[in-house]
C-alpha cells in the first residue's frame, strides 16, 4: 500500500463517508455529501437520491433509504410519521433529490411537505440538468444552456426554487455551493438546530454535463457564485440574509468556462448580464428584510 493510499484510507476512516464512488471525476456530489455529513451526528438518516441516482448515496455511512427518482420528500414524511408513532424523536431526517426531482417531477411533493412543515431537511442537489438520463434540461437548467433536449440553448431561465420554497413560510431556506465549504457547513449546522421543514439548495459542478475539464470543478463553481448567478443567502423565518456581498464578476467569465454555454448569442449574454445585475440590486435591497409573513 502506498503512502497516498494510506492517507486516503486514514482520511475516510474518520469521515461519515466511504472513499471511492462511481461518480465522474470532478463531480460535486461526493464533495457535497462529505461536507454536509460533517455537520451531522450519528442519529441521522438520509432519504432519497442525488446526484445521478445513487452514485454518491451509496457511500454515506448512515442509514439511507430511497424508492425511486420520482419519489421526493414523500417517503421521508412517512418515515417521520412512523418515528413519531413509535415515540422516536431524536433522529434527523435528511431528504434529498436532484434538480429534476425537486423542480419538476417532485415539486408538488416538496411543496406539500413544506406546507405540512415536515420536520426534515430537504436538500436539492442541483447539477442543472437531468444527468442520470444523459443531460436533458430541467426546470433548474440555466438560461441559454445546451442540453440534449435544448440543442439551441434553453429558452427559459432557471426556476427560483429557493424563493418558491420560502414562500411556503418554512423556517429555513439556504443556498450553498461546494466552492464555499465553510458557508455550507455552517448552514447545515444552523439547519440542524431548527425544527420544521428546512430547505437547502446546493449547485454542484458536473463536468460531464456542463462540459469542462474536471480539474477545474471548484474554480468553475466558485465563479458561479462570484458572478452572482448563484448568490449565497439564507432565509430565516422569512428574513433574507445575504452571505456574500462582493462585487460581481461578469457572467461572461463564468459562461466561457463551460461548453454548454457555447450556443449562447451575444445578445442573450447581454440580457443575462442585465438581469443578473438587476437581481443583485434587488437582493441587496431586500437583505435583512422580511420577504413573506
Amino acid at each position, binding site marked *: 500500500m502506498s503512502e497516498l493510499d494510506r492517507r486516503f484510507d486514514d482520511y475516510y476512516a474518520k469521515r461519515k463517508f466511504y472513499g471511492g464512488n462511481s461518480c465522474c471525476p470532478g463531480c460535486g456530489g461526493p464533495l457535497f455529501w462529505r461536507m454536509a455529513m460533517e455537520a451531522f451526528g450519528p442519529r441521522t438518516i438520509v432519504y432519497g437520491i442525488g446526484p445521478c441516482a445513487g452514485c454518491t448515496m451509496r457511500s454515506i455511512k448512515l442509514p439511507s433509504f430511497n424508492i425511486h427518482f420520482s419519489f421526493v420528500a414523500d417517503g421521508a414524511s412517512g418515515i417521520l410519521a*412512523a418515528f413519531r408513532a413509535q415515540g422516536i424523536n431524536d433522529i434527523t431526517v435528511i431528504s434529498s433529490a436532484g434538480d429534476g426531482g425537486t423542480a419538476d417531477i417532485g415539486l408538488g411533493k416538496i411543496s406539500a411537505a413544506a406546507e*405540512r412543515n415536515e420536520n426534515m431537511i430537504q436538500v436539492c442537489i442541483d447539477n442543472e440538468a437531468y444527468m442520470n438520463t444523459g443531460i436533458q434540461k430541467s426546470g433548474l437548467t440555466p438560461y441559454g444552456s445546451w442540453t440534449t433536449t435544448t440543442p439551441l440553448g434553453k429558452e427559459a431561465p432557471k426556476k427560483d426554487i429557493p424563493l418558491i420554497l420560502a414562500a411556503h413560510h418554512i423556517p429555513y431556506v439556504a443556498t450553498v455551493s461546494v466552492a464555499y465549504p465553510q458557508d455550507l457547513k455552517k448552514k447545515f449546522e444552523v439547519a440542524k438546530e431548527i425544527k420544521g421543514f428546512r430547505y437547502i439548495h446546493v449547485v454542484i459542478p458536473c463536468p460531464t454535463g456542463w462540459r469542462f475539464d474536471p480539474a477545474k470543478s471548484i474554480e468553475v463553481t466558485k465563479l458561479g457564485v462570484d458572478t452572482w448567478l448563484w448568490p449565497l443567502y439564507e432565509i430565516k423565518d422569512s428574513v433574507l440574509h445575504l452571505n456574500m456581498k462582493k462585487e460581481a464578476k461578469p457572467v461572461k467569465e463564468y459562461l466561457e468556462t463551460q461548453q454548454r454555454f457555447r450556443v449562447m448569442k451575444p445578445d442573450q449574454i447581454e440580457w443575462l448580464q442585465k438581469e443578473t445585475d438587476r437581481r443583485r440590486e434587488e437582493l441587496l435591497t431586500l437583505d435583512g428584510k422580511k420577504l413573506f409573513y
Partner: protein
Amino acid sequence: MVQVRMMEGNEAAAYGAMLSRAQVVPAYPITPQTELISFIAQFIAEGRMKAEYIKVEGEHTAMAAAIGASAAGARVFTASSSQGIVFMEEPLWMPPGMRLPINMCIVNRSIAPTGGLRPDHNDSLLQRDTGWIQLYCENSQEVMDTIIMGYKIAENKNIYLPVATCYDGYFVSATASKVEVPEQKDVDAFLPPYKHDWYSLIPGESKERPSRGGSARNRYEVQQANERAKKIIEEVDKEYAKTFGRTYDGMIEEYNCDSSDVVLMTMGSMTGTARDVVDDLKKNGKSVGLLKLRCFRPFPTEEFQQLAHKYHVIGVVDRNTSTGSAGGGIVSMELARALYHLDDKPLIANFHVGLGGTDVTPRQIEYMADKTLEIMKLGRVSEPVDWVELKDLGPVM
C-alpha cells in the same frame, strides 16, 4: 362488549383500521373513499385512534409515504379509488418487491373517461400483476373483518406482502348493514404489534434487506410469497372464526352449490343479490349454485382445480373489461388458465355486467343463470363474452 350497529362500509373500514391499531395513515380523498378517511381523521381528532394522519397532496405521495412509514416500523393503512389508484400506479409496484405489509382499501370505482363515480373492478384488477394480495368484500362486516385479517396475513414473516381490501363504492361503501364490532382486547390478542424482521432505519441498528439477485429473483420471491399466502389466508380465516365467530370460507365460498350442474361466479357486492336469485332458482328446480371469489390474488388455482369437476359450466360474472383480450373479462381469463390442463374441466361462460357501476339486477342474474344452463345443454360456448347490459331483458325485476 361486542357492539352491534348498522354501519356503512366506509365506517366499517375505518373501524377495521382503528381496531388493527394502524399507526400511520397517509391518504388523499376521492369519492367513494372520502368518508373512510374522514372517519379516520375524526377518530384521531377525538383521541379514539392513536395514529399519524399525513395529509398528502396526491395518491403518488400517499403510497410513497406509506412505503417510508412501513419500512420505518409502523403499521400503515391507506385507501383510494379509481383515478386515485391509477395515479398511484408507480408507487403501487414498490411494496410487493420491497416486501412491505401495507394494508390499503380499494373502494372500487370505475375509471374515466367512461366510468362515473360508481363501481366496477377495473381499478383494482388493473393491479393484478403487481404482487399485492387482493381480497374482495361483500358487505360492511366483511370489510372490517378482512382488514383485521389482512394485517395478520400481510405481516406473517413468510409472506410480507401488501394487501388490498377491495369493496364496491356505494353498494358497500355507502350502504349500511349490520356489523358486530369486536372488542379491542380480542383484536389485540389476534393481531400482535407490527414488527418487520428485515427492516430498521434506526441508526446503529439499521438494516435494509439487500435485494438479492435482480429482477427475476425478486419477482420469483414475490410469486412464492403469493403461493404461501394461499394457505395462510385459509388459516387466518379459521383462526378468525375461532376468535370472533365469523368465517368467509377462505378464498372461495361455495354458496348453495349442492347438486348444482352449473354455477355462477361473482365478486364483491353483487354476490348479495346473486345469493337471493340462486335461492329462488333452486326452489324453482333450476340447478344453479354460486361461487363467491373472495381472493383474486393469489388466484386460488388449486382450489378451483379441485372443485371444477363438480360443475358442467362456470358462468363468470366479470364486472370489468379487458378490451382486446384473448376473450372476455379478467376473472374468466384467469379461471381458464387455472383449469386449462385438467382433463375433466367445465365450460366457462362469461358475462359483462355492472360496468361503470350500473346495478347488477336480479333479472340479469337470472338471465346469466339461464344462459349458463343453456350452454350446458348445448355443450359449447358460442360467444366469448355476453355483454348483458346491452341486452333488453325487460323489466328490472
